[in-house]
């Protein structure tokens, strides 16, 4: 499934502009611990987290992830969105909690 389809089905709010949304989603990883994400996420995964600080972009970039979904209506600062745009990492937000986003994605992807 493409990231754009996930965005549409979950009505996600896309924060980044000029970042492609047509990449294939290989799976999902849910964690707020950055070392855990680095160790266990896979290339092309969507990352679900409540973290909003700058380092999430570097971690997602390192693992070449498809994008980051920030939950619970938490909003990243402008600086983080700009960094994500320059690293070509899509950032999306939602008012849903992590459990619900993960549950919906689990159904969509399995």
């Amino acid at each position, binding site marked *: 499934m493409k990231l754009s389809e996930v965005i549409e089905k979950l009505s996600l709010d896309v924060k980044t502009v000029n970042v492609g949304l047509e990449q294939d989603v290989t799976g999902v990883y849910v*964690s707020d611990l950055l*070392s*855990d994400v680095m160790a266990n996420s896979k290339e092309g995964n969507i990352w679900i*987290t409540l973290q909003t600080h*700058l*380092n999430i972009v570097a*971690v997602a*970039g390192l693992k070449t992830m498809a994008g980051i979904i920030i939950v619970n209506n938490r909003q990243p600062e402008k600086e983080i969105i700009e960094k994500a745009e320059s690293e070509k990492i899509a950032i999306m937000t939602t008012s849903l909690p992590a459990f619900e986003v993960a549950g919906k994605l689990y159904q969509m992807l399995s």
Partner: protein
Amino acid sequence: MPLNTDKTIEGSFQLIGGDFSIAGESSAQLKKILSDLGVAEDIIRRASIATFEAEMNVIIYAAAGTLSYTITPQQIRIVLVDMGPGIKDTEQAMKEGFSTAPDWVREMGWGAGMGLPNMKKNSDEFKLDSVVGEGTTVEMAINLP
């Protein structure tokens, strides 16, 4: 897959403690160098994770540090030397989940006690030396097939 060069490639990055805005820059640059050399994806991934974790340890705990790398056709060698508080019990520090990070660092999702174990897991050789009050040295090597 052989490298695009038979030369030894060396370089280093300076890291400043407390500067979270630069986290991941050294590993991203090393990732690009390895990619340009034609190193296999899984090896690049291991080297990048080990380097990122090494960067984080300097940023979280030390005043400053130097991360240097040496790439030969046989091996990627990464050495981190920091001016930090040192580690009292290195055996304890290697245990997954053990951490001395302050709460605000944990709230960022770092300091979960996974850094040193992640570095070791992704290396073929791993050596940790530390002197309390002076600093810590981590040496890692990843073999190239």
